[in-house]
């Protein structure tokens, strides 16, 4: 069973077919009636004419046969005989026909009388070898019969005329009835068609118009449209379409509401995340500040300066330089913590660090810092290069006994500055290098106790708000090279961002 059948829907096609069928039947009935009555009228008209013609032919035949018979009685001409015989035959047929056409018994009587006359006249025609007198006697006998028929023909004439009058009246009556019925039938059909059209128009086109009106409102952005009561009527395709349309509209409205709700929730979630991130940054900053407060840099700087002054008074210039370098390094580390610096400042700090380490490792450590012109002006988070140099020193140079060298290059590559820290230390074994690269690829990798490169990259990504490219290359026993491609951001733009606090933390 189809859905339509289940719902008891009468389709528009079914309605149209039903109406068409009914109309055809009415038309058929109408034209059958018209055709049958026309046939009847035509037949009766023909019958009337036939009666008149036959009766006239019979009356004329009686007179004509008499004169022919008389001629034959005198001349016995074969031609007259033939014509007379034919005439008598025609008369008998006419009388027979009249008896069949008219129900009055007098026409049956006439049929017999004509047959009797024809029989008698036939004797005149069949007589052979008789004299004229005998022929005339036979003729007289026939004539007497003919005259007797004539005497009573008045009755038949009256009957024929009466029949004509009656049938004409009947035909006129029938014709009037037919006309009246045809008019009534036409009126009924017109009313029927009009009623159907009005009903069809109300039932289908009105609901379609309502549906179109609703669609227009929706096109204009008015989504909240009520289903008019008319749309619920008439179990047909329009009804199905209306129901589907309004159900679809409800569904869309529901979806829109859900989307709005989801959007609001996502916005709230994002805001919460931002708040959380800011809170974490503030927490980290608080931690650093706490650490900083613990070290008490002012005390440390003052102490180192006092020691440096003492070293100068004691004529220990190397000690004095070392103390001042350490003080500078420490000041930089603490004062720039969590801030942006120029690459030049960072390189300077690294140089301080390496200089201090050089005093420690003497000939085991050499270093070189090279930079392209203008590279030093780009801004980066502080303490980016120092951990790399520290890694190179601890993991690369310290295991070798002499000739260690660390080279730092800062060169322009398109709109970025490539910073490379290269050491000629022990290098990574391939397995160790693969492990390091794998760890770097893992976002959740925590290398607090490792080489610290992942921490540097996270800070750089957060600072530049985009992934910063890097590469780790190593040949065991030969060299290890760590490269960073730093986006060249103008100092002003970075400072402005710094000032607005829009950048992610770098500390």
């Amino acid at each position, binding site marked *: 069973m189809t859905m339509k059948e289940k719902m008891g829907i009468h389709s528009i096609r079914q309605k149209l077919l039903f109406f068409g069928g009914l109309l055809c039947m009415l038309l058929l009935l109408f034209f059958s009636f018209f055709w049958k009555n026309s046939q009847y009228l035509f037949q009766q008209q023909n019958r009337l004419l036939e009666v008149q013609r036959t009766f006239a032919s019979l009356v004329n035949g009686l007179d004509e046969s008499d004169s022919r018979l008389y001629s034959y009685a005198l001349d016995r001409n074969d031609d007259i005989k033939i014509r007379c015989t034919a005439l008598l035959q025609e008369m008998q047929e006419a009388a027979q026909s009249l008896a069949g056409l008219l129900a009055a*018994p*007098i026409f049956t*009587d006439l049929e*017999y*009388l004509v047959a*009797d006359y024809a029989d008698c006249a036939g004797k005149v025609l069949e007589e052979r070898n008789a004299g004229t007198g005998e022929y005339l006697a036979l003729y007289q006998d026939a004539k007497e*019969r003919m005259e*007797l028929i004539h*005497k009573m023909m*008045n009755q038949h004439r009256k009957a024929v005329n009466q029949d004509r009058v009656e049938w004409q009246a009947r035909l006129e009556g029938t014709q009037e009835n037919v006309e009246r019925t045809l008019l009534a039938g036409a009126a009924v059909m017109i009313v029927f068609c009009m009623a159907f059209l009005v009903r069809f128009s109300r039932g289908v086109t009105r609901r379609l118009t309502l549906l179109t009106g609703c669609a227009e409102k929706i096109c204009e952005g008015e989504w909240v449209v009520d289903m008019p009561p008319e749309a619920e009527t008439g179990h047909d395709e329009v009804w199905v379409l209306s129901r589907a349309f309004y159900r679809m509209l409800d569904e869309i409205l529901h979806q829109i509401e859900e989307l709005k709700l989801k959007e609001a929730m996502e916005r709230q979630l994002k805001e919460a995340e931002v708040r959380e991130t800011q809170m974490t940054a503030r927490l980290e900053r608080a931690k650093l500040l706490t650490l900083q407060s613990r070290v008490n840099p002012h005390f440390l700087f003052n102490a180192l300066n006092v020691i440096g002054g003492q070293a100068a008074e004691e004529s220990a210039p190397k000690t004095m330089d070392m103390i001042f370098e350490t003080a500078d390094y420490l000041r930089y580390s603490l004062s720039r913590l969590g801030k942006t610096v120029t690459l030049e400042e960072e390189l300077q700090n690294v140089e301080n660090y390496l200089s201090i380490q050089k005093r420690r490792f003497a000939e085991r450590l050499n270093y070189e810092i090279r930079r392209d012109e203008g590279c030093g002006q780009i801004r980066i988070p502080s303490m980016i290069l120092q951990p790399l140099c520290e890694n190179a020193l601890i993991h690369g140079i310290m295991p070798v006994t002499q000739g260690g060298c660390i080279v730092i290059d800062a060169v322009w590559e398109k709109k970025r500055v490539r910073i490379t820290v290269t050491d000629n230390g022990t290098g990574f074994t391939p397995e160790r290098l693969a492990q390091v690269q794998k760890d770097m690829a893992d976002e959740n990798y925590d290398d607090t106790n490792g080489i610290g490169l992942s921490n540097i990259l996270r800070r750089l990504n957060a600072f530049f708000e985009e992934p910063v490219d890097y590469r780790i290359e190593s040949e065991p026993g030969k060299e290890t090279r760590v490269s960073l491609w730093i986006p060249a951001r103008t100092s002003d733009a970075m400072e402005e961002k710094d000032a607005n606090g829009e950048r992610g933390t770098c500390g």
Partner: protein
Amino acid sequence: MGRGKRAVAVAAALLCGLAQMCGEAHGLEEKPLRAVIFYHEQTWLQDFNIVHEIADAIEENLEGHPEVAFSRYGMESVSVENVVKLAIRMKTDVLLFLGTRSEVSLEYYQALSDEGIRLILVDGDVEESGRYAYIGTDNYGVGEKAAGFLAEILEQQAEVAVLAPALQTGLRSVGARLDGFFAGAEEKGLNIVARMDTSYDSLTAISTVERLLDEHPGLKALFCADAVSGQAAADVLEARGRSGDTVVITFDRNEKIENALRLGALDLTYTQDTETIGEACAQALVELAADRTQTGEDRLFPCIELTTQDLEGR
């Protein structure tokens, strides 16, 4: 064959048989009894036509009886010869006609009988005609009744005269009335002083009446066997101022007779009950159509009496 199929076959056979029987019965009914009546087309002199009226009544009473095909012919001249010839030539089953008695007419009646055509006489009986039946007025009885009427109202030996058309026509209705009257008169002892023949010509009748009154000035009653004689008697008596003196009895009814009755010129007229006669004829035809072997039965009907008092009472 299953029970159902057998039942259907039996029903079909029964239906076929029934249809055949009906067809045969219908075939029998298809030939109606053909009956024909002839009468004068004109109302003639008395402004009435008894046979015509009977024909009307027959026709009326045969409506709804298709088993009888009834033809009626009003002709300018009706003679026994022509009527019988026509009846024979048209091969009718029954001829209805008025009764006339003459040697010639008896021959024609015989010819009818020879052809197997049944004759029903409606206005005047001729027993020798070999008729199938006489269905009409009891003319003889009416004559007797008229004699009885006069015997009641007249004194002993009061002069009574009889006027009747000459009987050359052989009309048996008039003859029977006269026969009955004379028989009744004899029985009642009426004094009939004269009997004069009139004709169906009014002038002749008037002159006859005048001659009669001249010859019998003391005449107390006149029995007129036909309407023409009756009207003539009334006219003459009225002209002579003797309307109340002489009792006049006549037959049939028309406007003149009614006027004469009102004026007292006529005292009594006997009219034939044509409607009843027509009804009886129709009934006889229907019965004959149902059984064409049956023999006929005579039906005699009395006349309707109409007096001056009857007219005044209306």
